[in-house]
């Protein structure tokens, strides 16, 4: 294996030796003719699935194929927030498993992912919204998840600089999950890639899937830009490109691809030590360890495969930010970018078999995929290894749209750009 174990002794000895002994984090193998399992998509979810598949479920002959490079997709484009403050029964246990995996992740894969449980506060502005958050908090606590209802004074203790008396959205309080927080997103990709590689997984970058070969209704391999690769099982974890890759196998998905923008300001001194969401104003924000304010808002709202957004949404997000915290008015915007979200029709993900034998799907993460990375990988690995869903993810069926068992956290119906 290419990598060594990280430890304080290793760091000290490398420091003394001029850092000449560090090895690449993972190998760059040529694809083998065939694997037991191929995972299409080397993002967070695909890499996590390969990692747990090898480490927990004992499958050894695995490849992850990635059309770009590790970290080039949504795992490196999100705003790094983790939380498990969900309401619906199909969601809460799943996201709580994810939170628990986050809590042990750095020790588990021996990599510093800068996991910071700095807490997350969802603001409310009316009695009705407070009631909705009380209900959510109760649902969380019933599932053993931490939740705390703050009144305006409670919010003020954490975030004294918010505009509490905004005429349209006066802040009445917030729902806080203290265990929520942020994670260095690239390090998640790198940590899982390194960990999977150490388990013998082949990570094949610059390898775009161009076709899925089926024989007698069974998927048997993938055509790629680096040749044909056979597989007993194929798992798709292609995020915004899920529809495109699934269509290679003749599948139509309940998914639209939309662009979501994210923003980072110039670095400033420590200012916000938690994550705040201002849902009513389409704005949420945290501060990175480098000092940049990391923030975002709503989808641009139209189908898009372009990893960049348009100006009206930038204006909308900045207006939301100014309404919530006028103090940031003079901070300069450093960068903004877009990622392609696989927006499902009910706003919840799909981890399931497909109608094609040997082809498995992990998709529909909307803009909530990053926090789900560990549990998504774990459950997808479980599904690929055992051909049945892990107990926490049984609601994420592909056929739930036909059977009426949709999981609509936001309650907006089959309108992906509103989730």
């Amino acid at each position: 294996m290419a990598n060594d174990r990280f430890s304080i002794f290793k760091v000290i000895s490398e420091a003394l030796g001029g850092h000449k002994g560090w090895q690449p984090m993972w190998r760059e193998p040529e694809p083998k003719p065939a694997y037991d399992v191929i995972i299409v998509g080397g993002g967070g979810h695909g890499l996590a699935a390969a990692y747990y598949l090898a480490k927990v479920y004992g499958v050894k002959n695995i490849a992850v194929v990635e059309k770009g490079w590790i970290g080039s997709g949504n795992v490196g484009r999100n705003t790094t927030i983790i939380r498990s403050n969900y309401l619906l029964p199909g969601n809460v246990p799943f996201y709580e498993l994810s939170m628990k995996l986050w809590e042990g992740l750095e020790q588990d894969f021996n990599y510093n992912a800068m996991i910071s449980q700095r807490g997350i506060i969802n603001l409310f502005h009316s009695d009705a919204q407070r009631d909705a958050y009380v209900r959510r908090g109760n649902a969380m606590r019933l599932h053993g998840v931490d939740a705390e209802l703050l009144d305006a004074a409670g919010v003020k203790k954490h975030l004294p600089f918010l505009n509490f008396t905004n005429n349209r959205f006066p802040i009445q309080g917030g729902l806080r999950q203290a265990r929520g927080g942020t994670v260095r997103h690239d390090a998640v990709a790198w940590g899982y890639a390194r960990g999977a590689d150490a388990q013998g997984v082949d990570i094949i970058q610059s390898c775009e899937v161009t076709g899925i070969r089926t024989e007698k209704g069974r998927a048997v391999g993938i055509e790629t830009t680096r040749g044909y690769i056979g597989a007993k099982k194929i798992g798709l974890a292609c995020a915004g490109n899920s529809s495109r890759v699934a269509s290679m196998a003749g599948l139509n998905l309940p998914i639209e691809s939309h662009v979501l923008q994210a923003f980072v300001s110039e670095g400033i001194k420590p200012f916000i030590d938690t994550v705040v969401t201002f849902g009513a104003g389409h704005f949420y924000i945290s501060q990175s360890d480098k000092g940049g304010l990391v923030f975002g808002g709503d989808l641009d709202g139209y189908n898009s495969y372009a990893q960049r957004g348009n100006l009206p949404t930038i204006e909308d997000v900045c207006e939301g930010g100014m309404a919530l915290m006028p103090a940031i008015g003079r901070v300069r915007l450093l960068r903004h970018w877009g990622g392609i979200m696989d927006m499902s029709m009910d706003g919840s993900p799909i981890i399931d078999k497909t109608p094609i034998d040997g082809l498995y799907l992990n998709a529909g993460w909307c803009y909530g995929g990053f926090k789900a990375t560990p549990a998504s990988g774990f459950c997808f690995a479980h599904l690929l290894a055992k051909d049945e869903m892990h107990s926490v993810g049984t609601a994420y069926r592909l056929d739930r749209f036909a059977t009426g068992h949709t999981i609509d956290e936001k309650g907006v119906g089959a309108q992906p750009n509103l989730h």
Partner: protein
Amino acid sequence: MRITCPHCGNRSLDEFIYLGDATVQRPDPARPDALAAFVDYVYQRENPVGRHRELWYHNAGCHAWLVVTRDVRTHEIFGVEPAKEVSLSEKTTGAAR
């Protein structure tokens, strides 16, 4: 991205509201396979990479529904037609699916 409304002219994106895929058609509820057809109509999308026919509403303008043909990778717009005309011509030519 700007959209040239056939009534108002070239306008900023923030005047418009997006609905979605314009190629889906409400099935006949009397069809024997109506249930499956409705599941497709409500939930399943082609979600193509490239040209996409989609419905936009000129909300802060003339309030017309428009059928826009756009490349979803580049936002290049190939055509904008009033949805009313598209619908009427589909009715007369029977072009509806």
